[in-house]
């Protein structure tokens, strides 16, 4: 088996049916096969098959979009791990956060998640700044700029919803203050402009029991239903939407002329 050394062994492995069923093309040693690697991979096919040289120049892109994506993946992994120990109820939430530090090996897992979240907000802003300064929002990339703006808002919403989960005084009052801004939404919040117009006699159509803040918190103030709702938004709903939009974002980078080079 090892008659021809490691190379002979590797050649044999590459000739097995298992190897050939996984990799449909030869080794990426020539241009054609390298293209086949990218085009034939479900993850890589979002990526352009070929890049312009300027696309990999760090001074031009800062790799901020790539860094943001990397941090998003790191946050997904650490977040899933944290979910093993965290229970989103008023009784357990705070103690589980303490336990994640005190009773669990690698007690910095939550800190990685937290610092990663801060870092992601910073890299998203820098990425946006870079795209703006290089004029990469101009046609035909204007649609992708729009997707990016939605992703920015969703990043901030992920930070906002994650802020409540430690369930300490800072969390509860930060979300109280933050969600009270929803109260001031025009027509949809009971403290906002236009809400007073939606009143027929004594019947108030937009009240604290049916406005957007009530929908966000599942109540009139930050309580256990709000904790559960924010947990679901933070761990399931927003990451799913972000994942889909990231796929579109990358795909459009490819389709709209490649990464940030002049067209």
């Amino acid at each position, binding site marked *: 088996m090892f008659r021809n050394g490691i190379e002979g062994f590797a050649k044999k492995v590459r000739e097995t049916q298992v190897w050939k069923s996984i990799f449909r093309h030869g080794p990426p040693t020539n241009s054609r096969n390298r293209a086949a690697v990218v085009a034939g991979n479900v993850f890589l096919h979002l990526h352009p098959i070929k890049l312009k040289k300027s696309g990999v120049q760090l001074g031009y892109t800062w790799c901020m979009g790539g860094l943001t994506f990397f941090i998003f993946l790191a946050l997904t992994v650490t977040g899933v791990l944290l979910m093993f120990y965290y229970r989103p109820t008023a009784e357990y939430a705070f103690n589980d956060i303490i336990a994640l530090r005190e009773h669990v090996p690698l007690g910095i897992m939550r800190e990685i998640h937290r610092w990663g979240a801060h870092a992601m907000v910073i890299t998203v802003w820098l990425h946006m700044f870079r795209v703006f300064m290089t004029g990469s929002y101009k046609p035909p990339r204007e649609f992708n700029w729009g997707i990016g703006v939605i992703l920015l808002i969703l990043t901030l919403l992920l930070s906002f919803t994650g802020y409540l989960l430690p369930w300490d005084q800072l969390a509860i*009052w930060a979300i*109280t*203050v933050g969600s*009270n801004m929803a*109260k001031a939404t025009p027509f949809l919040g009971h403290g906002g402009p236009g809400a007073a117009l939606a009143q027929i006699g004594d019947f108030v159509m937009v009240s604290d029991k*049916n406005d957007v803040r*009530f*929908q966000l918190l*599942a*109540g*009139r*103030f930050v*309580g256990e*239903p709000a904790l559960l709702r924010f947990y679901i938004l933070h761990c399931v709903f927003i990451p799913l939407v972000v994942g889909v939009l990231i796929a579109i974002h990358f795909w459009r980078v490819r389709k709209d002329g490649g990464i940030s080079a002049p067209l």
Partner: protein
Amino acid sequence: MSKETKTSINRREFFSYLTVGWIAFTAAVAGLLGLTFRFTFPNVNFEPEMDFLAGDPADYEEGVDERWKKKYGVWIIKLEGKLAALSNICTHLGCIPNWLAGERKFKCPCHGSGFYQNGINFEGPAPRPLERFKITMTPEGIIKVDKTKIFRQEKGQWDNPESYLKV
């Protein structure tokens, strides 16, 4: 199959049925989306009652009383022979101020808003006085506070006879 059944529906009728079908389908989808939206608003939640009985007026002394603060979020204040039910929600961004007895003021820990014991704001970012709730006397002579009815000083509503109780 006879020739008659074959032509029982002509081209024009077919498109009429198609239109009705699409309208029905669209309406059904819209209705389901509406119900799904409504799903996010719970019918019942387990928050404290919006009205409560606050005991005998004689139980209260001049000044600020904190006995209902934790349970119902209300301070009963007695000033110049008038009882009033003061909301404990800061008018800035909704935190809960503390009553500082030594300084005779309510002070919000979030952003530093300060209120006199009658609820009027005098320092910090709060844009208006604390709100007061409807306060009435039951036939048995017990104070009743109703938090669904709000009286705002800046709208001149503190003169409303339901916003205070003469004792």
